[in-house]
């Protein structure tokens, strides 16, 4: 039985994340832990970090959290789990910064599910906002980011660029979603240098064909950050599997990651994992 976290910030509730959880539980019983993170306040950020320090990781917890709103969301979560016969736990006793607490939770879980449109949406209009980006960066388990409205994935798009991270994500996906490996699957190799051959093609084909019986391999001669999301336009009902969001400084350049467009423009679930 997999232990899956679903994270909500203090006042926002993601129906999309819960629908994903319900579907997973129908396929194979899970233990879901609702993590209710405290509300954060921009005003405290300005007061505490006026020395020019940037980054949302250090936004302090609101001094007087609206506990009634959080309690209301917890009740909604509990009612949802009971109605759908999902075994659940609730974690909410967070006194410190939100992100370190979430990171600790991910150490002891198989998967984290986050609603891409609702997670700390008060902290920025940009989607995905910086808080969601941080959650992806610092998570110690794979993450599924789901939009509020989407069709449950009937196919997989494995993104491969020859890197350790991209292969790692594919392997983790097969461990966590064995039922989805029988779906139609597209292994996409995309690099901005069109003349380059797919790296280690024999090896990746051998690995992936063991787990995905309905596999198609495709080379895309386009630059991922610019055009991948556009290419996805007609790929509805899919889950994109990506090894982006590593913790190194290079891969933290979120805006250059093609997965941004997947989350922002096409409203399809994305599975993200990094070694």
């Amino acid at each position, binding site marked *: *039985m*997999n*232990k899956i976290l679903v994270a909500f910030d203090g006042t926002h509730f993601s129906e999309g994340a819960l629908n994903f959880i319900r579907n997973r539980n129908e396929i194979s019983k899970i*233990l879901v*832990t609702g993590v209710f993170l405290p509300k954060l306040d921009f005003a405290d950020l300005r007061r505490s970090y006026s020395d020019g320090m940037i980054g949302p990781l250090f936004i302090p917890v609101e001094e007087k959290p609206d506990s009634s709103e959080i309690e209301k969301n917890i009740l909604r979560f509990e009612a949802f789990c009971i109605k759908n016969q999902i075994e659940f*736990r609730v974690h909410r006793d967070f006194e410190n910064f939100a992100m370190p607490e979430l990171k*600790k*939770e991910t*150490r*002891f*879980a*198989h998967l984290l599910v986050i609603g891409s449109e609702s997670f700390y949406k008060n902290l920025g209009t940009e989607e995905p906002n910086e808080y969601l980006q941080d959650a992806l960066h610092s998570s*110690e*388990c794979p993450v599924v980011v789901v939009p509020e409205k989407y069709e449950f994935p009937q196919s997989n798009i494995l993104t491969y660029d020859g890197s*350790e991270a991209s*292969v*790692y994500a594919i*392997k983790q996906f097969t*461990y*966590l979603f064995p039922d989805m490996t029988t779906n139609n699957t597209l292994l996409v190799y995309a690099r901005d240098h069109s003349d380059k051959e797919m790296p*280690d093609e024999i*090896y*990746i084909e*051998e*690995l992936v064909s*063991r*787990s995905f019986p309905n596999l198609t391999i495709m080379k895309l001669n386009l630059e991922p950050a610019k055009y991948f999301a556009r290419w996805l336009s007609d790929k509805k009902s899919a889950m994109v599997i990506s090894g982006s969001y590593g913790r190194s400084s290079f891969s933290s350049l979120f805006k250059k990651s093609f997965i941004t467009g997947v989350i922002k423009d096409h409203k399809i679930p994305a599975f993200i994992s990094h*070694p």
Partner: protein
Amino acid sequence: MKQIIAGLNAIDFSPEQLIHFNNVSNQIGGNLVVVFLENLVSDILMIPRPYPDGAYAFNEEIDWQRLEERKKQIAIGMKLFHSTCETHHLNLLLREETGDPVADLVKESRFADMLLLDSSISNRSSLHHDTEISVKSVLHNAQCPVLIIPPQLTAIKEFVFTYNGSYSSMYAIRQATQLLEKLQPAKVTVLYVDEKNTGKLTEEKLLAGYLGAHFKNWDLAVCNGEPSVEILDFLQNRPGSLVTLGAYGRSRLSTFFHKSESDKILLSQLEYVFITHP
């Protein structure tokens, strides 16, 4: 179906070892790919020049003799491999790697779910010491979990999850529960090494929540003192144990034990050792 890679030393091939690896792979639910480590290239590069300056360089005459000797042994090993597969009806994929064995295994590990190694492979890998297969180097750089198989074939009866609250130790536990779920041992024990003598299990509630989702029952054993000494002591009277170690991380932060301490456990060749790092 999981992709399981077994690194076998081509110049000292052992049919028993192949059968052993195949049995383990079957138990895990994997397809076994055998990587024959022939180690030809590194021999060419590392032959010492017979001059007093001590430098290393290519020496054709000496190398040729060694190379021929090695090729003969590899041919014998290959023949034995095929006859073993035929006799025991093993349908295995074979890959011959002639380069640096450590680099070859690391590359293979990127595209594998698990790498199987015999802890004594480094002792039998080379005609001369310079080119030996370093298990430690493989563990440092492997991009999938590595399962070190003991010389004596025993059924796996117990999982021993070593734990100290670190990401590295928990990552190893998570990977083991996912990849080895078909083994279903009779017993699961968390061995908590209380390095700081706090008397308290780090993140006990979260750990219990995770393990409770996988195992109906599990035991907790707590020990203080030197991790390697304590773990070795704990494993002494537990035949058929599979111990997880979160060591050999690529960053200092993710190292569970000091490297030398992990080495002691590996070198003891007591039980199955499952090592991985985030």
